[in-house]
């Protein structure tokens, strides 16, 4: 067994800072977005007024898939799972009255991440914000899309080029912005074990680092801005051990593989979100308790920022009351529970140290196996991580079915009647409003300039130059998200997954 060492010292098992929350609490960053950019903007202003300390944008499915709100394929989906952003105009509306030079903004967007980020940078520019002061995080983790969440547009290699373009651009121009959040969250939501979540996420991190180095960047130029995103699931001690193992393993991998010298390159910083897949439709108030326990694990595991889910999220997008209660859950942990007094309080606990060692060993086995396949892209092409997750997910469901895994209120301790909770309903009006706005935009903008920018983008995509400049030019001319993604699809092609069960 490794001796746990001290918080703030290599390999950072016990935390990346010596003092952790004694000096500064984690960022309370609630993910939200729904209906229209106007309504989402109002929710952001409300959340900031309630003491939330950073924003986190949820986009709707058409936006996540690179389609405009007025694309026929978007019918019925606009504003349902998040905010629609089809153009720079929508991005400007989303952040109206919110100073982007001061508020840190996380954006959950993957396949079209480079395009959405170009819109964000252009919106910040219009506010007069200095790019060097912008802080926030782009999720931009395409590998986990092939592995778990399945929101992909292009084949893996051109997608990796786009990610590498954003990493290179951020390294040069937006030193306080995290261009990627390497995510285990969705891997876990898709049904993986804790060990799989840890292993696939860190192996994805290696893949991004390999591509950035291949591009000519030095590990210490970009690694300090790689960020991570983990799930906070039910198994309390296992989750705490997972975060500890993640920090240790990443520090060791980055120093072993790349010889990083800057200690910031070695420190794994992460965001955590409580487990959406653990929430139940039955007896939804039980979800408040699940979320509180999970959030406590993330805090005891040393997270840098946290989203707590709302009690109604197995039923709908959160209502304002439910979203406020979720934020209050974090505030109670932070200000009343006393757990912030000492970093890594479980350091040295026989059980937690053993779990940490076990998870690290299991993750190393997976990483070695994927290395043996030639890296994460060949592994994805062989459906390896996808099938490992599907097997774990089915095994868990069978345990629930047999009563070997207890889900309170679902397979044990059921109520005959359910107490209904008021949920948020998003009608089709949001879609109609977006269609009207886009129609107006298309008639007002300079069509020739848009066409020219899209041609230049296609031309650049055929070459090897960084695409952030032609992307930014296109969105400044109010080319829409759908037009830009379609221009890239002309060059890169589309990706469809082999349906295996």
């Amino acid at each position: 067994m490794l001796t746990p060492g001290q918080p703030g010292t290599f390999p950072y098992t016990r935390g990346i800072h010596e003092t952790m929350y004694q000096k500064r609490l984690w960022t309370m960053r609630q993910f939200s977005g729904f209906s229209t950019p106007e309504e989402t903007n109002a929710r952001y202003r409300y959340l900031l007024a309630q003491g939330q300390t950073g924003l986190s944008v949820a986009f709707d499915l058409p936006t996540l898939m690179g389609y405009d709100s007025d694309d026929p394929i978007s019918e019925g989906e606009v504003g349902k799972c998040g905010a629609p952003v089809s153009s720079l105009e929508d991005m400007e509306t989303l952040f109206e009255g919110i100073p982007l030079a001061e508020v840190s903004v996380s954006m959950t967007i993957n396949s079209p991440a480079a395009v959405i980020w170009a819109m964000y940078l252009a919106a910040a520019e219009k506010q007069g914000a200095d790019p060097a002061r912008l802080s926030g995080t782009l999720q931009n983790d395409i590998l986990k899309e092939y592995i778990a969440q399945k929101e992909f547009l292009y084949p893996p290699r051109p997608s990796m080029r786009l990610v590498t373009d954003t990493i290179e651009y951020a390294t040069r121009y937006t030193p306080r912005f995290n261009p990627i959040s390497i995510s285990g969250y969705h891997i876990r939501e898709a049904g993986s074990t804790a060990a799989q979540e840890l292993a696939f996420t860190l192996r994805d991190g290696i893949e991004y680092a390999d591509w950035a180095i291949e591009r000519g960047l030095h590990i210490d130029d970009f690694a300090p801005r790689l960020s991570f995103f983990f799930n906070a699931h039910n198994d309390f001690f296992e989750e705490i051990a997972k975060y500890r193992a993640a920090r240790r393993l990443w520090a060791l991998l980055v120093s072993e593989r790349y010889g990083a010298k800057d200690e910031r390159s070695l420190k794994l910083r992460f965001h955590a979100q409580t487990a959406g897949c653990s929430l139940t439709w039955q007896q939804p108030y039980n979800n408040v308790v699940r979320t509180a326990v999970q959030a406590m694990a993330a805090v005891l595991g040393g997270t840098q920022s946290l989203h707590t889910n709302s009690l109604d999220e197995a039923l709908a997008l959160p209502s304002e009351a439910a979203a406020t209660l979720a934020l209050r859950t974090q505030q109670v942990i932070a200000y009343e529970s006393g757990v912030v007094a000492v970093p890594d309080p479980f350091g040295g606990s026989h059980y937690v140290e053993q779990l940490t060692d076990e998870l690290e060993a299991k993750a190393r086995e997976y990483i070695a196996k994927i290395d043996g396949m030639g890296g994460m892209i060949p592994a994805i092409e062989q459906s390896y991580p996808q099938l490992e997750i599907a097997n774990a997910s089915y095994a868990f469901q069978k345990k629930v079915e047999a009563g070997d895994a207890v889900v309170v209120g679902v397979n044990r301790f059921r109520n005959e009647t359910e107490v209904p909770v008021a949920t948020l309903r998003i009608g089709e009006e949001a879609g109609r409003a977006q269609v009207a706005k886009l129609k107006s935009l298309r008639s007002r903008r300079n069509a020739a300039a848009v066409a020219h920018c899209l041609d230049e983008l296609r031309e650049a995509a055929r070459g090897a130059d960084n695409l952030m400049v032609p992307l930014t030019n296109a969105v400044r001319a109010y080319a829409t998200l759908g037009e830009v993604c379609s221009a890239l699809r002309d060059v890169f092609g589309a990706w469809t997954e082999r349906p295996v069960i």
Partner: protein
Amino acid sequence: MKPPIRVLVAKPGLDGHDRGARVIARALRDAGMEVIYTGLRQTPEMIVNAALQEDVRVIGLSILSGAHNVIVPKVLELLREKEMSDVKVVVGGIIPDEDARELERQGVVKVFQPGAPLESIVNIIAACA
């Protein structure tokens, strides 16, 4: 002995969250059914064509994005147009109670909401044979 029931498990719409669809597909297969999984992002037309070509008895639609009120009626309408009303439709996903009742009124055999036991899903689909 009757031949095994053939079931098409489909993911319509833009949503890629396929954990549920995959679990159901495996559970139906383990129960002895012949399962065809369409993969992601199928339009109602693609789903109904696949159902026709594969000669299935049941279509299971998995929708978690909130687009069910637009997608499910389209599938039902296409089945009627193609005179395939003998093909039964079941739906699973995050479907509010009132929407579930409305979809069942329109002809869906059963809407399975979160937490529905695999056993009951298997039994209801088996009863469609």
